[in-house]
């Protein structure tokens, strides 16, 4: 094998090696990108779920809803009080922090229909 031919083979070998490294790098990059994307999506889903109060750890789904409802109600009440305070001409005393409201409102027991009676000849 003459020197020129040997040089050409070396160059081909380098090219193949570089191409192989490029493919490996590209694959590694794709895997990392997809992993990051999946993690980001999952994290976003969990964040949104927790932020809206739907913590799956809480067994009572209605309880979570009640909390959200209670929070919304408190916000509405707070806004209404603020509006009243603005409308009133007299200065309003600083609002005393209200006692913490129960998170879960007691559910009224369903009223059972009274047992029917019979009237007959006594």
């Amino acid at each position, binding site marked *: 094998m003459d020197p020129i031919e040997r040089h050409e083979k070396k160059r081909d070998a380098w090219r193949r090696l570089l191409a192989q490294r490029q493919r490996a790098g590209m694959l590694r990059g794709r895997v990392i990108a997809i992993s990051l994307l999946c993690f980001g999506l999952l994290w976003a889903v969990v964040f949104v779920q927790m932020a809206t109060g739907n913590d799956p750890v809480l067994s009572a789904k209605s309880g979570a809803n009640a909390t959200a409802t209670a929070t919304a109600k408190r916000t509405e009440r707070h806004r209404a009080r603020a509006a009243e305070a603005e409308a009133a001409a007299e200065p309003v005393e600083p609002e005393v922090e209200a006692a913490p409201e129960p998170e879960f409102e007691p559910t009224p027991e369903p009223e059972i229909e*009274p047992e029917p009676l*019979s009237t007959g000849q006594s």
Partner: protein
Amino acid sequence: MSEARLVFDCFGGTVAVHVRGAAGRDDDEVAREARATLLDAHARLSRFEAGSELSRLNRDPREAVPASPLLRRLAAAVGTAGELSGGLVDATMLTEIEAAGYVASLAPGLGAPPQRVVAPFSSPACKRRQSAWHSISVDEEAGTVVRPPGVKIDGGGIAKGMLADLVAESLEGCEAFAVDCCGDLRLGGGSSRPRRIRVEDPFGGEPVHELSLATGAVATSGTTRRAWLGPDGRPAHQILDPRSGRPAFTGIVQATAVAPSGLLAEVNAKAALLSGPEGAADWLPFGGVLVHDGGEVEVVGAQRTAPQPAATP
């Protein structure tokens, strides 16, 4: 929240007490107290027990006889029933009812089976010319029942209606209650939720009607359940015509009356039955159900509003 319910034998039939929401007390305990009251009243007022207070009063030769508050209340109720019904409901016909064959406790269903009795004729009953219930009075100060010796009281349905009222008075604080004295019902309580009340078929079939009532009373009087064959082989029953002293065949075999109190419901039901088809409806101002001897069912006065509880007359 379910209601406490006690069912027991009393007054020759089945009695039930329903209690829900007794103020500050256990519903079962309140129901048990009501049962004790009714069983004690039965022991005192049964004419079938020779040792009962009522039987002793009926035998007593004195004119004024010391009596317990319960017996005095029954004696007063006998007078009230006579006055309210114009003498049609006469609870002093013990001799006549025994002569007709009703001398021992006769639970419904143990006598002649319910049947359509074809009476040879039917006519409205009338009051007695010499009514004995006029002569009964109560001296609360002396604690006595005053009546001519020989006048005998038969509590019968009057006692059941009165006792339903008595127990109802002790249950007024409950959220809801019902006292069923063998078909004489008294309902009440703070809850306004109505209760369904089925009116039984006098001939043993399906209920003939259904009422709905939250407070008040319902009583039924009839001629087919506590019935028997008389010595002459003719059908007999416990509802007597005061004028003749014999079982009344008026064309009505069962009358159900709604009223504010158990006593008034019982009086109205009996008076309606004794008045016959022509005048029966007039005795049901709060509504009711009539069953004619041919089996026809007549519903009187649609119940648009439940009667308000009133003081026991």
